[in-house]
């Protein structure tokens, strides 16, 4: 290989510079959030069950909420048969947030971490918000 030394040094510098944002972010990555389940409503439940199993909810809650929205608003279907055959009213305000009353520690933490900004709360009322 001709001019091995400058070529290799040059390559190393190039790779270092182009990957700078990646290893820089690795170094001070924010700790992964742990959504908090400590609300009075959840504490009182004999068996702590959500609408679907936790892994499903974690991965697919946005699809589920989207389906609920379409089902309720456009189809008039308001009852959801969740895990263990339990029936739930399909409502963000009346079902989800009754248990997960700690929106800032449950929803917002992860959404901030993932950099997503769902615009649910411009209309739907979070617990404790706008206390009249």
């Amino acid at each position, binding site marked *: 290989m001709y001019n091995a030394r400058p070529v290799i040094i040059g390559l190393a510098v190039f790779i270092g510079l182009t990957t700078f944002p990646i290893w820089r972010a690795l170094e001070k990555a924010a700790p992964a959030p742990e959504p908090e389940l400590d609300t009075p409503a959840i504490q009182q439940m004999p068996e702590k069950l959500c609408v679907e199993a936790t892994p499903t909810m974690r991965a697919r809650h946005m699809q589920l909420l989207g389906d609920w*929205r379409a089902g309720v608003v456009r189809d008039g279907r*308001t009852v959801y048969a969740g895990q263990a055959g339990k029936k739930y009213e399909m409502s963000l305000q009346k079902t989800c947030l009754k248990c997960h009353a700690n929106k800032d520690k449950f929803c917002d933490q992860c959404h901030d971490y993932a950099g997503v900004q769902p615009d649910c709360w411009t209309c739907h009322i979070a617990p404790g918000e706008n206390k009249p």
Partner: protein
Amino acid sequence: MKISRRSFLKMGGTFALGFTALPGLKAFAASGLLKASPDPKALAGKKWAMAINMKVCREKGPEGCKECVVACHQVHNVPDIGNPKEEVKWIWKEPFANAFPGQEHEYLEETVKGQPFLVLCNHCDNPPCVRVCPTQATFKRKDGIVVMDDHRCIGCRFCMAACPFGARSFNFRDPRPYIPKLNREFPTREKGVVEKCNFCVERLAAGLSPACVEACRHGALVFGDLEDPNAGIRDVLSSRFTIRRKPELGTRPKVYYVV
């Protein structure tokens, strides 16, 4: 075993079809809508309509009675902005001449002339607002109720231009600070969307009658299914002379008035 080229291709084709259909089937099975059903308590109807007996409203209700309006606006988080240009309303009172333009003349009986008439979205059978909506945010349900899906509303206001009854209001600003008492069971709207009466679909789904009907202590408002011959509203329509607002426009309103 010997396979002919023909049967080999057939089998291959079948497998390929199976593999391509699988993800689609999986997605379909995962869709939450398969597990969703209407509430068994829900009031079912084929053609919901309302009859407003203005005679009862005038004679039995106290002067300036607004109980139905207050009940509706409280349940649905309708803001009270105070500025008539930015007013948001679902059900309100309008002078006779405005509610029934062309019907007024100077010798009209005093009980009707200039009197306030209760008006709301007519949930037209042939709704012009639905036809013009570019995102299908407003649509007619199978039971005849014309509703807004504010998730889809882009605030273009075509529906407001199309509605001949002025039944739709636009949110020029965030309505939250103007809601006197928040109902936490129902969402508010946000800046830039249109809203209107929804014939209390959320209450019908839970087996309750509309908030305005429930609030009227004199029974001036009758809500029912036009397709049900035994419904109370059919009694009213067959025993009294009723009129509708602007029937000449062909929108076929489903709010009837006993004048």
